[in-house]
């Protein structure tokens, strides 16, 4: 109980700090960079619930993210729905897709599951590309609503993302410390043994894919207002798939803090590289860092820290 209360307090503190930062009106660039990094915190955390805890590697992250974004686009086009509705709807539609891939796990394990999610992403992207209402392959400009509740719109979006990140991390932390998280670890280690030890594996997998899908969709929902222009290639960018996987790996997949560290480190490194050195070098560095990490620090930064402490 003390833990939960503590988490809640920390969470509220972070949100408050986020709002304070928003109020301070520090350099606007930081909001943009911060938004992207926080978005990756949500994505990495969401991915890790299924991939890190449950051991099911989802290559289809872009599909979930884009589904959230495009659900928002549809609602904006249709009724100019307010942001909370977009978040909820984006999350729910993605959660539904998550539930769908959850049933795939009935038959598909390991790399087969990963490939199925990849295929899913391609099929979904083709559908979006051929749907004119959301701009098809030409993309669509989205006008931001005038008059955000406070600050300018980007500051507002940043604050929303702070709250989403805190929410996602809280959910992940809750799952990790409950019987659900322990059950997921058991099925990651050995699904058959877990089932035979009384773990309701199917229900846990469905839960994990749905929650993971929901969070990925929520991360995508504000995207149209952030970029103001949505087109399939950037909404379904392979970057999301790679980062969703790489960030938890770099941070450490066994704990909620791992994806957060990974997202903050890799996300800021990428932001920095974009505005300092060439992007080619940026990608190159991501490649080298990835290889170096998995070879030299297989348990991520968390593992490194643990090793340094001699545990």
């Amino acid at each position, binding site marked *: 109980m003390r833990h939960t209360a503590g988490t809640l307090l920390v969470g509220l503190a972070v949100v408050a700090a986020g709002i304070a930062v928003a109020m301070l009106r520090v350099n606007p660039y930081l909001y943009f960079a911060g938004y992207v990094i926080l978005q990756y915190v949500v994505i990495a955390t969401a991915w890790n619930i299924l991939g890190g805890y449950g051991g099911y590697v989802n290559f289809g992250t872009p599909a979930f993210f884009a589904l959230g974004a495009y659900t928002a686009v549809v609602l904006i086009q249709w009724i100019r729905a307010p942001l909370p509705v977009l978040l909820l709807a984006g999350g729910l539609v993605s959660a539904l897709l998550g539930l769908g891939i959850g049933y795939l796990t009935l038959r598909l394990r390991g790399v087969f599951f990963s490939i199925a999610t990849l295929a899913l992403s391609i099929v979904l992207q083709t559908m979006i590309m051929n749907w004119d209402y959301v701009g098809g392959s030409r993309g669509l400009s989205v006008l931001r609503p005038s008059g955000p509740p406070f600050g300018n719109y980007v500051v507002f979006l940043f604050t929303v993302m702070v709250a989403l990140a805190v929410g996602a991390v809280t959910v992940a932390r809750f799952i990790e410390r409950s*019987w659900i998280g*322990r*059950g997921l*670890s*058991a099925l*990651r*280690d*050995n699904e*058959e*043994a*877990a*089932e*035979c*030890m*009384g*773990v*309701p*594996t*199917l229900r846990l997998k469905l839960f994990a894919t749905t929650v993971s899908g929901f969070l990925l969709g929520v991360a995508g929902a504000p995207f149209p207002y952030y970029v103001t222009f949505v087109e399939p290639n950037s909404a379904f960018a392979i970057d999301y798939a790679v980062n969703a996987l790489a960030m938890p790996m770099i941070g450490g997949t*066994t704990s909620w803090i791992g994806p957060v560290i990974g997202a903050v480190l890799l996300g800021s490194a990428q932001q920095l590289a974009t505005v300092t050195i060439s992007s080619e070098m940026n990608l190159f560095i991501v490649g080298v860092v990835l290889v170096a990490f998995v070879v030299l620090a297989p348990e991520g930064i968390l593992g490194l820290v643990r090793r340094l402490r001699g545990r």
Partner: protein
Amino acid sequence: MAGALLEVDGLTKRFGGFMALNRVTIHVNPGERFGLIGPNGSGKTTLINCVSGSLPADGGRIVFEGHDITSMPAHRRTRLGIVRSFQIPKPFRSMTVLENLGIPLENAAHGRAAEGAGAMEILGTIGLASKAHLRPAGLTQIEMRKLELARAMAARPKLLISDEAMAGLSSAEVDDILTILFRLSAQGITIIMIEHIMRAVMRFSERIVVLDAGERIAEGTPDEIGRNPAVEKAYLGE
């Protein structure tokens, strides 16, 4: 047969065109020490996979304590009290020995015991208490087998299915495991032992069923089985 703990009735299982189990019927009574033997590929493991729920049956019926469990998912059978160990140990590698026991305690034992005490108690009786905080990678072969049994016990079984828990162990180690199984039996747990080590099965079982090529070919006390010519033929060929 009224009063049986487990009734397997006309169980059939096919893999493609291959008939792995052909209308097999066995009954296991409460508290019994039951042996299941047969040559390689005779269908023993398939049978217990069907009983524990790892594989769906193609025909026949499985009844446990009067409930038809034929199409029940494995984890619910475990919760009812059918618990198995694996021939090749399948520990949860990312967890310590103690945490390994936590999974069944939390998921199958209906929270009947507080996690720490219950798990430590089991580890104590089985002789793994000193390894409680190690990961499975740090265990020896015999310790792995013991962990497998300990984890099964943590699920508070009414029926324990021990799948070749002694294969590859030394004679002293076999005795060690046998002692543990006898003690469990004394606590009132029904045990099905699948084993290749004849000495162990013969000593342990009150009743034995022999499978060959997916069919039940014999049933009886260890003595009767030992003298059965059909069994000898199945094992030695012609």
